[in-house]
């Protein structure tokens, strides 16, 4: 009994009803001493080598419920706590009061399992996925533009990390694929912060300017209290806009490192956007009134940022120089045009995603126009 034998006894007792007698035989000289002590603690009656099964094992699972599974339920109780979906939950454990995001309609998307699997498989290693050995041969003034863009990207990705992090611990563990996906989203942003930071400093430059308007814009994301609207503003609109930006950076990058990290970040952000469109779309289907809250969130954010400057001129100009590739007059003109087209692409992408979420064309155009000038 002191070397695992109790498992055999418990197994034998599990197969008989309360009141049944099980004789235990063994060669351990302490068997009867330990059998009596063990049985007493477990609620069985022991006389010599005979154990009369008690009722305690059955009573322990009285009132136990299975925590849903294999699919998700509409409104898992907080009493299921951290219990795995589908497990048998013994009654009497602690509630999980922090998980106020506990309705399927507001957090779930049928895409979650697939997107999580893709995310888990797509966790590239910043150290090896990028060829950091590439020479620093970008002209100094263009390098400065790249560094400024990286400076801007870092703080935006930081916000994109913090927003889902705020909500992650509030989502009921029953929706584990959603929790898991958001964990990968946070890990993705952590990698983005790392590679953008590393690119900014790899050729010896100090980082560029962090504009107050940009930080004000990002702050409104952090302040957004509701999960659906925060995800809408951050991912559906903001990261959706960033898909265009990262694609632009990949196309016009003056060096292979910038190109590679833009491509890698782009494939991650695409997943984030897909997830947001998935869960917001399904939430809208279940609760059409959400559309009004999404609309008001855009308007509220726009009003809050009316007095701010939006995208720092340094960032906008850096994008022009980066796209230009040089400070030659004609190159700058070409770069300017490319940034104009970028912004048109961003607008078109936002409108398309808004229509996909069920907004009318006209309203989609209006809301897209009200999106923050800071892109995210």
């Amino acid at each position: 009994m002191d070397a695992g034998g109790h498992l055999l006894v418990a197994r034998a007792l599990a197969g008989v009803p309360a009141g049944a007698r099980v004789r235990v035989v063994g060669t351990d000289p302490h068997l009867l001493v330990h059998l009596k002590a063990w049985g007493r603690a477990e609620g069985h009656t022991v006389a010599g080598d005979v154990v009369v099964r008690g009722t305690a094992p059955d009573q322990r699972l009285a009132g136990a419920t299975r925590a849903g599974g294999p699919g998700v339920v509409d409104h898992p109780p907080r009493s299921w706590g951290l219990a795995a979906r589908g497990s048998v939950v013994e009654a009497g454990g602690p509630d999980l009061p922090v998980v106020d995001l506990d309705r399927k309609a507001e957090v779930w998307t049928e895409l979650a399992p697939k997107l999580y699997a893709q995310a888990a498989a797509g966790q590239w290693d910043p150290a090896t996925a990028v060829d950091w050995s590439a020479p620093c041969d970008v002209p100094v003034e263009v390098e400065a533009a790249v560094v400024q863009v990286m400076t801007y990207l870092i703080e935006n990705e930081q916000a994109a990390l913090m927003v889902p992090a705020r909500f992650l611990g509030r989502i009921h563990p029953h929706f584990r694929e959603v929790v898991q996906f958001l964990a990968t989203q946070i890990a993705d942003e952590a990698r983005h912060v790392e590679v953008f930071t590393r690119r900014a400093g790899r050729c010896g430059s100090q980082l560029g300017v962090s504009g107050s308007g940009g930080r004000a814009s990002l702050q409104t994301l952090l302040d957004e209290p509701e999960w659906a609207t925060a995800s809408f503003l951050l991912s559906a609109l903001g990261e959706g806009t960033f898909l265009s930006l990262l694609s632009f950076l990949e196309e016009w990058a003056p060096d292979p490192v910038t190109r590679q990290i833009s491509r890698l970040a782009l494939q991650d952000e695409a997943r984030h956007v897909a997830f947001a469109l998935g869960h917001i779309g399904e939430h809208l289907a279940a609760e059409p009134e959400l559309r009004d809250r999404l609309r008001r969130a855009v308007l509220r954010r726009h009003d809050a940022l009316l007095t701010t400057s939006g995208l720092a001129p340094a960032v906008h100009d850096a994008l022009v120089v980066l796209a230009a590739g040089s400070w030659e007059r004609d190159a700058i003109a070409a770069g300017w045009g490319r940034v104009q087209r970028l912004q048109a692409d961003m607008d078109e992408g936002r409108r398309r995603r808004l229509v996909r979420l069920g907004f009318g064309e006209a309203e989609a155009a209006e809301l897209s126009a009200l999106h923050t000038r800071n892109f995210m």
Partner: protein
Amino acid sequence: MTSSVLLGAVAYDPKVVTIWDGFRAWFGERDLAFDYVLYSNYERQVQELAGGRIDVAWNSPLAWVRTRRMAPRARAVAMRDTDRDLSSVVVVRADSPATSVSDLAGATVGTGAVDSPQATLLPLRLLDGTDVRVHRFEVGVGLHGDHIGGERAAAEALRDGRVDAACMIDANHLLFAKEGVLPAGATRVIAQTSPYDHCNMSVVNADVDRFVELLLGMDYADPAVRPLLDLEGLTRWLPGRTSGYAQLEAAVDAVGFYSQGGEVTAAGYHV
């Protein structure tokens, strides 16, 4: 609410507060005005029960023996299922030449604290007539062995070769194996007491019928009360009985632990 019940319990572990706070709330939901006071040792608790300042004492077996001597009308009204038919053992290392207690003549035997029924008073009766040196591990004196620190220290001393034998309750011989203090196969039991009973709810004069009724009605299937039962170490409360204390009464008399009137007369026992 019905008339109140004031229970005394000894604070041998911080969990005692959790246990009785929980039970207090459970009793309150069933209209029993219940409260509890904590004591640092059983001797004061027994005095308070005998003096009528508490209605019921959650007593150790030794405290029950003293209560009965101070207040002959005392009753044991309830006990845990795990308080019935325990035994203590005398243990040696597996490579010891001793196969019975008579082989321990001249040996050193480790026990729990002076006031531990299960690790000192009862198992030492098995060594009556054998010339042994007793090394008591005085941990938690006043707690009547509830704090198993003394028992564990004796077991460690046995493991480390500082004593030749050690006394402990049967459940702790199993526990110490699981903890690795006395790994499986490292020791042999050479003597075992007859079964005896342990703690009980002791009452002198008070009417605690409703309290007992509620105790006996506690259901292990009830998720509200099961965690408390787990903490207190039982699966159900049973009616009290006094048939299991004869060994301890004899042990108390043999060493002069208490007088017939319930005075503390044990040598070297101070709380």
